[in-house]
């Protein structure tokens, strides 16, 4: 896998401690259902956003796509958090995609130190030629009950 989109635009070793993971299940909120769209997996860098500081945590953070591990320990907590969010911001990303990475999707890095500590948080560094087909959708959960998934 190649990551020149990241390495050419960051003077930090962002991929250090990252690894391919096609076993674990992850979650990320998305706008549209029932299928996932590439637009929902854009990094902040791809949205022309700048890091808050020059620290490598912030610099690498804008190149990663935030995802959270979805397992027995995390599922209830995360779902509760997302549903609480939907109470206040019902329009924004009101579906939750549950998926696995396929071979060649990219690598993940455990990054719990966010603005608010999040022990389930990972960054996904997408491979240069990542497409949405590199993700294997397991389930799409609507976060607003009356809304069709």
């Amino acid at each position, binding site marked *: 896998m190649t990551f020149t989109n990241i390495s050419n635009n960051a003077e930090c070793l962002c991929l250090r401690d990252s690894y391919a993971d096609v076993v674990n299940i992850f979650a990320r909120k998305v706008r549209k259902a029932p299928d996932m769209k590439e637009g929902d997996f854009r990094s902040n860098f791809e949205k022309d*956003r700048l890091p808050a500081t020059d620290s490598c945590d912030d610099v690498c953070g804008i190149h990663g796509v935030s995802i959270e591990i979805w397992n027995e320990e995390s599922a209830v907590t995360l779902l509760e958090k997302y549903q*609480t969010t939907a*109470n*206040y*911001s*019902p329009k*924004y990303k009101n579906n939750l995609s549950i998926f696995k990475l396929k071979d060649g999707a990219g690598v993940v890095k455990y990054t719990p130190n966010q603005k608010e500590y999040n022990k389930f948080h990972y960054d996904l560094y997408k491979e240069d030629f990542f497409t949405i087909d590199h993700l294997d959708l397991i389930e799409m959960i609507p976060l607003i009950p009356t809304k069709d998934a």
Partner: protein
Amino acid sequence: MLKLNSTQITNSELPIIVDNYKVLHFDEYPILFTGTNKYGNKLIGSFCDEDDNYNLLYFVIIISDKDFGDFYKKKISYRDLLRKSNELFVLEKTFDDRLLNSYSVPFSEIPVDYIPLEKSYIPQKFVVRESLNYSFSLKGKLADLHKGLVNDINAINTKIYDYLSESLQALSVFGITPKVFSQPSIVGSYRLNFDIDFNQSSQLNFFEIDNIRVTEFVNQYLEYVSQTLPNEKGDFLLGHVEESTNFIAVKEKFNEIFYSSNQEPPKTVSEMLVDSVSSVAEKLSNVSEFMKSNDSFNSIEVGVINGNGQFLSSGIIDSEYKSLVELKVQFPNLLEAVNVVSDEIPKSYRILVYKINSESGKGGARLYPDSSEKYYKITLLVNKNKKDLSNSLFTESLYEDKVVEVSGIATMIDGSYKKLECYL
């Protein structure tokens, strides 16, 4: 997509949080937050959406101290706060929190799918737990300079104490003996702080009382008397209480104390509360009247102190209180009575007691003049002769919701029984 246009752009600094910023819910972005602007107004806001340029849109509104307190007490949702706000701002910010534009948008123009859901209450971990820690913040005159004349402060302390003590008389039916404590003031404000603690009397401990239900009732009851009663319909306490949804809500809270202990509420609950509301409103009227005649303050903001020492307002009491409530409650007015007749010797009467103070012997009861269901509401006065009221016919009637026969001197005013004086 939320449509914003340049005519809605405002330069107002009202929606800009400059202090006390607190994130109540975070999920990728600060989703729900509070703070204060440069003028000291309380603000609440939420993340709304990303726009086409990936900038972040936030709703922000100014809320009153009362609404702020109610939100923290989970009495009002964020959705309802937005709905009732006079002015809703939409802030457009960059990812690194730089303000690009501020828009003033009427709530009616917000598309329905952007409006927070009905269950958009404060996250549970921030809810202020019901407590009996009350704070009375003196406002105006010297109090604004954090000063007060000693005599004024002593007098208002006593009047507030009387008001709180009177409000707790409603709990006597549960055998609860509350105590009101004065608490140290907080530096930098003129607040009089009180804490209420209560124990069930071991002599009257017929059933276990749920303290949380009692706390919830006392809070709702005090808020009713101080904030809602002035807005009730005229003379509503004189026979129209069941028409008031607010009064019914207080009554249901009172009944919940019985239900939580597997007890059926007595049939006299409404009378107990009407009587009690009148007495408490009278004490609060004394507080309000004092505001006209002292040199230290002219209004009082009532609130509770949460676990972090934060003052959460329930509303203001000012010198108008008495004039607003005096037509609605039953302040005694014997001066207008034409024909007052009392028994010359004690006679036998059938009564149902719904309130009695075991210390003073004062209370309230229904007096049944004959064998029918017809009754008069009377003031009961039991002269204890240093005896204990605990195991008397009067407490038996109160706790067992039972009509008893007692001997006493009744007073009739204009043909209606009004008072019964008994001896223990």
